[in-house]
């Protein structure tokens, strides 16, 4: 219980005591909390989740504001004062050091990479969750033959080695643009969500309030979106957080192998990819910082995911 609530409780207790002393009548009001208020209360108690939330907040801020102060465009990139082929280790001028070859400032690359990598992680998650929710809702609600067909498609997609397929797709369809990578990751990232949503729909579909809605003649679309979906949303939120983490690592992996985003748009993956050719020169600072950025982001997202699971999963609610 937080400070504000304890003080509120203390004030209430004090009021009741005074009223009793004065022999007056008094009322006890029960404050009912909504599902989300309860979840937030639980989430707040999860220390790691709060840390994760703060970390993601900071990262998003860096991704949005950072490139304004440290733009990565060829017209304004400062020219190094001295040419060192293998790059220079971290110094006061270049906090994260300089890359080999073109001698880019690693901090600048990482800050600009944050924008692309986070954008890819979140937006491809949205695409995946939307597709997955629609497929799962249709399969779970309609059932029967359609359900069977859709779930067999999911089985097939889940049996494919997705990373291979994504690699192949990025190589054959991709032209190094961020948008295409987002679409590819979205199109191959919905299966887990659809299974989850389907199972939720299967159980909620049979509940009394849905039956009541159907009895008074509510149309199917309204039942799906207004009656069932809001009740199925919490596990979707938890899975969505894990998808973000997976997609950020996945994008880094695809770009690292050279099939992802063009190096002119830095992402954490393609910064690492360029660093690989310079291994014999021993400039560790180049791959180190983008990698740490990935780890910090994924850690933060996973922390939030843990917090959300504790907060939203009714079975774990104390």
């Amino acid at each position, binding site marked *: 219980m937080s400070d504000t609530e304890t003080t509120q409780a203390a004030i209430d207790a004090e009021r009741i005591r005074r009223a009793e002393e004065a022999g007056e009548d008094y009322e006890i009001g029960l404050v009912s909390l909504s599902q989300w208020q309860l979840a937030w209360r639980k989430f707040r108690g999860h220390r790691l989740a709060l840390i994760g939330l703060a970390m993601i907040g900071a990262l998003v801020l860096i991704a949005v504001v950072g490139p304004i102060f440290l733009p990565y465009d060829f017209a304004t990139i400062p020219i190094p004062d001295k040419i060192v082929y293998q790059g220079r280790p971290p110094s006061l001028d270049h906090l994260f050091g300089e890359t080999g070859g073109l001698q880019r400032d690693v901090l600048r690359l990482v800050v600009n990479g944050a924008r692309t990598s986070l954008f890819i992680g979140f937006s491809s998650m949205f695409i995946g969750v939307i597709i997955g929710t629609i497929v799962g809702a249709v399969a779970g609600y309609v059932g029967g033959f359609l359900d069977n067909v859709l779930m067999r*498609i999911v089985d097939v997609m889940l049996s494919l*080695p997705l990373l291979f397929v994504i*690699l*192949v797709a990025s190589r*054959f369809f991709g032209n190094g643009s961020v948008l295409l990578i987002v679409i590819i990751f979205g199109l191959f990232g919905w299966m887990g969500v659809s299974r989850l949503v389907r199972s939720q729909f299967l159980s909620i579909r049979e509940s009394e309030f849905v039956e009541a809605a159907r009895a008074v003649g509510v149309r199917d679309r309204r039942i799906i979106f207004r009656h069932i979906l809001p009740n199925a949303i919490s596990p979707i939120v938890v899975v969505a957080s894990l998808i973000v983490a997976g997609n950020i690592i996945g994008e880094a*992996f695809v770009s690292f192998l050279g099939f992802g985003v063009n190096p002119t748009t830095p992402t954490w993956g393609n910064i690492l990819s360029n660093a690989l050719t310079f291994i014999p020169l021993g400039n560790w600072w180049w*791959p180190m910082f983008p*990698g740490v950025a*990935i780890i910090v982001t994924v850690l933060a997202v996973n922390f939030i995911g843990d917090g959300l699971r504790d907060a939203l999963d009714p079975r774990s609610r104390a």
Partner: protein
Amino acid sequence: MIKYIIRRSIQAIPVLFGITIVVYGILLAAPGGPTAKFNQNPRITQQMKEDFKRAWGLDQPVPVQYCRWMGFCSKEVDDKLLGVLPAPAAFIGPKGMPNFLPTGLSGASNGVLHGDFGFSIATGELVNTAITRAALPTLILASIALFVWLFVAILMGVYAAIHRYSLFDQAATIFAYVGYAMPTFWLGIMLIFLFSGPGLNLLPAGGMTETRVSPPFGSDDYWVYFGTHTLAAILDVGRHLILPVVTLVVVNIAGDSRFVRASMLEALGQDYVRTAKAKGLPGRSVTFKHALRNAMLPVVTNIGLEIPFLFTGAIVTETIFSWPGIGRLTIVAINSFDYPVLMGVLLISSMLVVFANLLADVAYAVVDPRITF
């Protein structure tokens, strides 16, 4: 039990069939196709491209190509139905039986159903040969990594469960969180920087054998060399194995050690463990005989599901450490638009996933007598 296995196998057939369609579809939808690699070459005329397509059967309509690749259709019959579909006559093999039946019955030997994945467009060799050659290095890397990682994960998980909330347990938790968030390839790069960079030149940065000493792994010369210098050859491969194995192990034990810990904690809280303790059995015996064996049940399933991803997951590790396995084969095939090889690799790894799912379910039933079908 056997009934269950048969039922599950039959259920897997449509999934496998769907996989072939998806794999074929993805590669077919790709712009350019196998002749795209000639676009930059001014010496190659349109006529030569046409000839190339005809030679590889790529001038045929898609359903016919798919039918031949799968082995439902014979390659000899060129007749078509409505111009796009294979004619009924194409489904009959040389011996007058349906083409897809085993070679002994139908006389046909083309197509995936007969175990023939065709020829690599880039190198002209059989896809089967290329995959078999690449499979051995991957198998060596994956099996050693799997062994080490299971051993460490089980040890860590059990120790952390017995000494719950101890310093070790907390350190393992932090390690699991960080390891889970760490991209494999990043760890690989950092390990190379650490151990084979200019500072501390201890271990080889890549490859499977020392190129100055030994012939390339898998070549005929190599096996001659292996015969004469067996110990040196094994030590050489061993030295090259250390970094890739460590990379795979660190990233993978993170999740698994947590899994073992959770499973072990659940087992330790069971009534039969309390009973065993109350009977006065020594603690060690209770932990390892009563709790551990039961805690391993879900772990077994988990391992079964993870094995196929060892193969595909090794793609990154193999790329970083230039390990001449399936992962490298795939990357090279992707770069050279080598469709037959890609389809072979994709199909085989998907089949592994389906098979592992089946195996995990069966294994679970074997180790847990409470489960009946």
